């Protein structure tokens, strides 16, 4: 643990709040009328997954949890836990599914991810902005939905459904924005 002040706050940083590990989701400064400066935060409790608001005095000291990013392979899901393995040491860690929010739709068995670890425990992971996933189901005859601008819905290998242009075919690997869940483009065949 190391002490930081509110001026070191950054989105994504891990801090301790009421003895629980939390991640800073959002923060901003506020000055109440005729008052000194404060920092309003949204903190995600890593254990419960709940997001709560707390307002710090500007300059208040908090404990930062010094996490390190470790490259680990995602093995499988088991009882709402994600099991990762360090491919060098074969050491395994588990990460509750609730910690990763909507990224759970895109996480793929066998792929390497950066897992954030502190004191032997996984606290979170870094999410790649773009994920490459194979289409396992696509209706080739789809006429497209004109409201959506000639798009069809396909199912990817992690079972998530995404809207893609009509020319994209089953078996192809596509790139999806993991933030918005939107189709970005097709993986070029030459990469294989």
């Amino acid at each position: 643990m190391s002490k930081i002040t509110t001026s070191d706050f950054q989105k994504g940083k891990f801090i301790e709040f009421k003895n629980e590990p939390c991640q800073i989701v959002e923060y901003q400064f506020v000055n109440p009328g005729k008052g000194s400066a404060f920092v309003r935060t949204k903190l995600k409790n890593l254990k419960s997954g709940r997001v709560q608001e707390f307002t710090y005095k500007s300059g208040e000291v908090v404990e930062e949890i010094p996490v390190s990013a470790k490259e680990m392979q995602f093995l499988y899901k088991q009882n709402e836990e994600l099991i990762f393995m360090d491919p060098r040491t074969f050491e395994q860690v588990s990460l509750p599914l609730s910690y990763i929010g909507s990224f759970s739709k895109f996480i793929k068995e066998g792929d390497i991810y950066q897992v954030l670890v502190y004191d032997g425990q996984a606290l979170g992971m870094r999410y790649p902005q773009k994920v490459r996933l194979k289409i396992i189901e696509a209706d080739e005859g789809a006429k497209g939905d004109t409201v959506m601008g000639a798009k069809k819905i396909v199912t990817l290998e992690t079972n998530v459904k995404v809207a893609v242009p009509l020319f994209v075919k089953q078996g192809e690997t596509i790139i999806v924005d993991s933030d918005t869940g939107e189709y970005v483009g097709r993986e070029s065949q030459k990469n294989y």
Partner: protein
Amino acid sequence: MDRVKLRYMKNWQKLKNNPKLWEKIFVREKIIQSIREFFFIEKFHEVETPLLVPAVIPESYLEIFETYLIDRKNKKHKMFLTASPESSIKKLLAVGIGNCFEITKSFRNNETDSDFHNPEFTILEWYRTNATYENLMDDCEKLLLHISNKLINNNNQNKIVYQNKLIDFSSPWERISIKEAFKKYANIDFNDCITRNKNPFNSEKISVIAKKKGYVIEKNNTWEQVFNQIFLNEVEPHLGISGKPIIIFDYPRPMAALAKIKTDNPIFAERFEFYIGGLELGDGYSELTSLKEQKERFNSEMKLIKNQNKIKIKKDLDFLNALKSGLPKCAGIAVGIDRLVMLFSNSKTIREILPFPLEVS
């Protein structure tokens, strides 16, 4: 200087490709037009006061912008940008302007990284002579109704939707005192927060209460910091959730440096704020007119500024002259026009409504 780069976010460029954004920009001119109309009907004078001044009112919670004036002999004179037009308007009041208002720019340093503050912002102030803060509360209700009636073109002119909340401007608004709000929402009896001696706002007692609630309190934290941390965490989130604007009044003295002390309870001052849809929109008070009291507060604020290592200001002694010559009994209020624009354009952040927001990257 830090190596942080300042930039104007390129909001103005977005206007070309997204004509819908103009709507947010044009809300401002409609609001300002209706404010002028309101005060014209109320027979107020509109005044204009300087933004660049040689001395300011010491207010320890603010950080000021300082600059230099260079005269013809190339001599530098320290100058400041005003954090509000208050001191100049009060000088005009002292010499007899009577009821008046101003719409102007104000500058507050150290207020980046926020959805609700821009270092340069637009402020409306108005002053009523022979009036108290209660008259201003009524003004606020009437003004907001006037604006909504001008801006909203449907049958529900008293109602708008702000951030998925239905707001109803019609009178009467909710009103609650700080003392009641602390009891109701934070379960704190105000009498337990103050010390019964010469210095009632010594932070000792309130710190004990805050620590019990789990706040981290340091020895150097002021009474105001502890109070406001409880207020922001436990009271403010409840204000105005019914959709009615809410007036919260009678602030403790440390948060009312220019307000008149209540005669029946000197712990509090005649100051109020109003909130709509979670936005803090205005801050008004019965003005302090006692020269002796104002001098004392000048000195204690100067001390706090020094202790906090804030920018060294020059105190506006000319303002004390205004009080000396006799400031009439009056009440004045500041309302953030940018936040009114946010409210009436249903915008979550101040950046959305400014073509040139100032941001640190």
